[in-house]
């Protein structure tokens, strides 16, 4: 775990004139690690993930993915990552299967593509629905479609913005296991955000806590619990939030 998958240095993102998205944020994600960003609504998780995914440009500071600058060489960065957006949907009139085929065809071709599509279909496990138009899907079904598509693309770095929101209990557990499996089996680095502390505790090697665009704590779940004197991450979160509020 020495190579660095993501290096974020003094990252600032200001929307418009004054709305602060991220404020002087620095952290690193090691290769093959699962790193979780947590924090209250509006703390800057999505902003950070979008910048790393080359969707938004930083106001200042720098971000490297496997040593490649996201602003200078976005195309090279995109070839190493895949990104599950906060609100991932799919083309309404495509079938789920066609959506997978389309997205994966931007990365693979020929037999490799067939294999990737098959893999995505297996992960999604949507049965007959895979051949139905996406507009007939429920929210959770759309989510699992998007999750399985990005997983099956097996990038070096997988960026997941709240991967399990909208999923039922069983599917959430299943997706967590899948993320773990892909991290283990294929050595995929995972950077995710989540509001579910159980999930974070179960999945991540390290956690970064964001508050108002700043990193206010970082460490393994164990370290965080110990330093806050808490029994679980939820408690850590609440304590940090209170302190953060006071500090501010």
């Amino acid at each position, binding site marked *: 775990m020495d190579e660095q998958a993501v290096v974020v240095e003094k990252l600032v993102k200001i929307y418009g004139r004054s709305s602060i998205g991220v404020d002087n944020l620095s952290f690193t994600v090691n290769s093959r690690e699962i790193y979780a960003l947590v924090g209250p609504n509006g703390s800057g998780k999505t902003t950070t993930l979008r910048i790393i995914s080359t969707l938004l440009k930083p106001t200042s500071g720098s971000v490297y993915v496997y040593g490649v600058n996201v602003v200078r060489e976005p195309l090279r960065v995109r070839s190493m990552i895949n*990104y599950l957006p906060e609100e991932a949907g*799919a083309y309404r009139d495509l079938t789920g299967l066609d959506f997978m085929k389309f997205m994966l065809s931007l990365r693979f071709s020929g037999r490799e593509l067939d294999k990737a599509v098959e893999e995505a279909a297996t992960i999604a496990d949507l049965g007959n629905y895979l051949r139905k138009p996406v507009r007939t899907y429920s929210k959770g079904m759309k989510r699992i479609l*998007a999750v399985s598509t990005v997983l099956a693309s097996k990038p070096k770095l997988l960026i997941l913005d709240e991967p399990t929101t909208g999923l039922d209990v069983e599917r959430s557990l299943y997706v967590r296991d899948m993320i773990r499996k892909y991290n283990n089996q294929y050595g995929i680095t995972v950077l995710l955000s989540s509001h579910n502390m159980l999930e974070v505790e179960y999945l991540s090697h390290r956690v970064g806590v964001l508050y108002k665009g700043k990193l206010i704590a970082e460490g393994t779940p164990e370290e965080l619990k110990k330093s806050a004197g808490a029994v679980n991450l939820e408690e850590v979160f609440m304590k940090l939030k209170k302190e953060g509020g006071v500090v501010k």
Partner: protein
Amino acid sequence: MTIVQLVKREVKAFIKNPGFIIGLILMISVYGILGNITGMAVESATKEFTEANIGLVLEEDTRLVKELVKLLNTTTGGRIRVYGSLDEAISEAEVGVVIPAGFTENATSLNKSVVLRGGVRVTTFSLTGAQARTSLLVVVSSTIERLLPLAISATYNVSLQPQKPVLMSSNILFYDKKISQEEFLSITAFISYTPLLVSLILGINATYAAQLVAVEKVEKAFEMLLAQPIRRRNIVLAKILGASIASILFGAVYLIGMLMFIGGGLNITTTVGTEQVSPITMIIGFLGPEMLGVIVSSLVIGLIFSGAIGVIIGSMVSDERIAGVLVTPVMFIFIGVGFLTMITGLSPNPASAVLAGLTIASLPYIYAISLFSGETFLIIYSIIVAAGVCSLLIYIASTIFNKDIVVLGLRIPWGRKARERM
């Protein structure tokens, strides 16, 4: 009354939609400008109408003819000039009318009819301009019709006779080609309507392209697409191509519909000499088969052009509703430009060539002008400008696709509040 609340919310959402406001401003200003230009064109056509000299050719020099010319000169405010031949009259005065030999006899015998020969020179494809010219002939013949009884009664000292119809067979000198009235009408109509039809397709294409981008955002597949290892420029080009294919399909169906609407359109024939010719064959014969090539190329260039504009609009808005509102005025602008070309025409000068290049729809028109006026550089100017504009638009669209705006949408302070409230 919950309905009032609901309607209030709808109206508020619409009015606070930045696209709506921008659209209104765009439309008002562009149509204002268009209106001014059209007004100027109509004014100059009217001026020409009331100030042009009328050339007369007298093949007969009777007392009646002398009297008639005198009356005619008085009624037209001294605009009558006499020439030796019709060709001379047309080239000097632009409008010429021949009082033929045997005129006096025909005018004074009961069962003979009066037929004049006339001609005008037209050096514009503009419908208003061309119509002003041809109607000048009609005015001359009807004036003669009115004045003839007066002239007869003055010449022969008889009581006022009833009016006798005066017919006019007219020829048109179109630039340097002699053509009949029917041919003239078909050609000017064809040349004038083509920009309108092309602009309509371009307007539709811009809408399709904007919608393609906006819908993708609404479907929420867009962010994932943007993170894939593909060049943004390729996304842009794909959208333009996709929209163009849809528009071409639409255009083809539209054209078939139009042909069906014209119905017997292909059966309408014109008499050229002794041959019966369909207007389409005639137009192609007159303008050359290259004309079709020019129309197709303008359509292709225009589709890239309008597709890029659509993509730019689509990439800056957050949903298809705003895209629709914003793209509607753009569509009207396209159609407005088509109308403008049709009504006012374009003069054969570099400014028109650049304008046609900037708006694409008028390219076939410029081609026709440059063909007839012999100023080949015009169409070359236009095409260079058009190609430049297209590349620039594609470049702008690709640049926008690399900016935050494509993910976040256009940020106008009051626009954001409206969106939050919705």
